[in-house]
């Protein structure tokens, strides 16, 4: 069967054709919004027109069946108009108020979680993991699933002092926004790759393998016609494995995740912040990573208990001080917590004023 005529460099369609009429009409002319509940908000235009957004959690990894389920609902209740948020939730854009209740009812019946709007957690930004990435040292989707199962009440109903952005990265490439999240999980290796010299000899291009190392830790091993790795320079990134699989970086016994906290990207109140290391390592324990979910909940609850209204996790920690954060959470402070990388000197405590 003949394929249609391919076209190149056309880019995506213009977004206008996908905007509901109410949005086309009031584009750029909104007056205010109100958060009605965790799963519903309304935006009111200067014209008085309104558009309701019903937000539903999505696992991001979607089968075509599920997408069809969404489109069916959209067609039925809101003229087929829906969008995805920047955190991978689905939003049904309703312009007829009377359709909201039935839509919510059917979503509920089909088992979809409505929520994520306002001061609470939203979808957990994450990436491929074992599902599709060679670089993964944990599974992102799995971690997100168990975290969401544990914390869903904070998505659907309970409030937190301010939004809490959670994220999971399955390796140090950090394809999510883990480096600037309130509480995030990043998977790490902890050992220098193990080299299968015979295979390297046959399967790999030595020069490109050497070139792949960002820290210059790899040098040729002429004797073995292979490579050797400088233990002090290696930061376990796995790039060498990417180009030369016999340099095995995966190590189930020593791979796992670190938990970082206190990042944010918005400019409200305080500057955007990087996440900082809270827990250097928790061993991979699939399918439910109980130690990880417990740790995240513990930190989240410490924040809820002690933060002022509107304070983000990082703002709360900076107000009380990191020394107090470790005291409150009872987390051990280790050598891994002390920066020894490029801007280490800027993280040293240059004052005699601190808490006990």
């Amino acid at each position, binding site marked *: 069967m003949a*394929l249609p005529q391919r076209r190149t460099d056309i880019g995506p369609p213009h977004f206008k054709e996908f905007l509901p009429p109410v949005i086309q009409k009031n584009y750029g002319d909104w007056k205010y919004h109100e958060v009605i509940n965790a799963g519903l908000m309304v935006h009111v235009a200067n014209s008085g027109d309104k558009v309701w957004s019903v937000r539903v959690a999505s696992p991001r990894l979607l089968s*075509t069946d599920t997408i069809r389920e969404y489109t069916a609902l959209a067609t039925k209740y809101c003229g087929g108009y829906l969008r995805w948020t920047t955190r991978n939730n689905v939003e049904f854009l309703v312009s007829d108020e009377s359709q909201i209740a039935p839509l919510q009812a059917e979503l509920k019946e089909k088992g979809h979680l409505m929520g994520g709007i306002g001061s609470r957690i939203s979808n957990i930004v994450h990436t491929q993991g074992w599902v599709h990435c060679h670089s993964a040292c944990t599974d992102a989707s799995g971690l997100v699933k168990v975290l969401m199962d544990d914390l869903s009440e904070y998505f659907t109903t309970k409030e937190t002092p301010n939004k809490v952005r959670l994220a999971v990265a399955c390796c140090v490439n950090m394809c999510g926004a883990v480096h*600037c999240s309130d509480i995030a999980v990043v998977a790490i290796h902890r050992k220098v790759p193990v080299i299968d010299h015979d295979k390297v000899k046959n399967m790999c291009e030595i020069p490109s393998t050497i070139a792949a190392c960002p820290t210059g830790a790899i040098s040729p091993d002429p004797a073995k016609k292979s490579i050797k790795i400088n233990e002090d320079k290696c930061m376990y990134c796995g790039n060498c494995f990417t180009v030369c699989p016999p340099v095995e970086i*995966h190590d189930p016994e020593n791979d796992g995740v670190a938990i970082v906290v206190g990042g944010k990207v918005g400019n409200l109140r305080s500057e955007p912040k990087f996440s900082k290391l809270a827990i250097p390592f928790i061993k991979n324990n699939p399918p439910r990573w109980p130690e990880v979910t417990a740790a995240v909940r513990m930190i989240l609850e410490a924040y809820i208990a002690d933060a002022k209204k509107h304070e983000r996790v990082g703002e709360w920690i900076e107000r009380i001080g990191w020394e107090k954060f470790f005291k409150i959470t009872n987390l051990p402070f280790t050598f891994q917590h002390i920066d020894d990388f490029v801007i280490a000197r800027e993280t040293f405590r240059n004052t005699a004023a601190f808490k006990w």
Partner: protein
Amino acid sequence: FVTEIKKAAAKSDMAADELGQLEKSYRDRRGYWKHGGIVGVRGYGSGVIGRYSSLPEEFPNVANFHTYRINSTSGFFYNSTFLNEMCDIWDKYGSGLTNMHGSTGDLVLLGTTTENLEPLFAEFSSRGWDLGGSGSAMRTPSCCVGAARCEWSNIDTMEINYQITQEFQDEMHRPAFPYKFKFKTAGCAVDCIASIARADCSIIGTWKGNIAVDQAEVANYAGKGMNIQEEIVDMCPSKCMNYDGKTLSIKDEDCVRCMHCIAKMTKALKATGEKGATILVGSKAPFVIGATLSHVIVPFMKMEAPFDELKDLTRKMWEFWDEYGKNRERIGELIIRKGMREFLEYIGIDPVPQQVKEPRRDPFFFWTEADLAK
């Protein structure tokens, strides 16, 4: 998500093997994917990520299992008609698994064979849907919902996003850069697209003018139990607000436009005056020199279609990167290596205090012959 894979597995052998391999990963606590060769569609160098199972015998249907990145629409708006078509095509040519969306913003079709790439491209491009970016190219730009559904947007994020994408099709589809380049556009400093944390070029809407205060609405918020002193005034970073229990006043000249007060009292406060954007560059993930946030290059740029000023600035930045950038060096890393001066002089932008948090602290600064002549 396993549910999702199972749904797909019911119809697709690929998805079934994907599930099988994933279950094995859970048992063994490790992944089984390989990088392997570059694949793509004719005439394009990007848009497809090659993936290969390292256990092809065990899971033949995912022996190759590539990602097909569809360039999404601005703001991720869709309708049922297109999505249903998309599903039909994908069930026919792929695993039936997707990511909506990838972190960069593509509509990611997860897992197909090399043979199916061309048919997929024919089906989608003929319907008006092109491939997104990958590799050392401009990546699919993304933006917040902005003017489409947000009262705070100072710029038309969606149109900017669309025009950048259209303007730089070649840079997106035929990787010719030292490394990847990402654009993200937010309508205000709230930055709902996290542009400042993960875009080589972050465009953030802002204004030059006052914050209009509707005192009646202020009273309403107070009436509804908001502690305006503690929740708003005390949390203002520039301490430029004052509330006497009745009227809320703002010393606009000292406001840094952080958006806190507006966000928490949207009915009472509104930014007025000239609208535009702050252009920042250089954020990226930690690899290799540690994560960086974008930093201010142009404090204020007018943002009206066709956005020529932005497009010209982009070309100049790319020229600089092209000339000095090493392979796999992001533009932000290059600026750090070369120094901000070289970059600013090359792209023709003057130094202003807004570009720095604070001036330098050491006395080791350079003087060009021209500086000395001054």
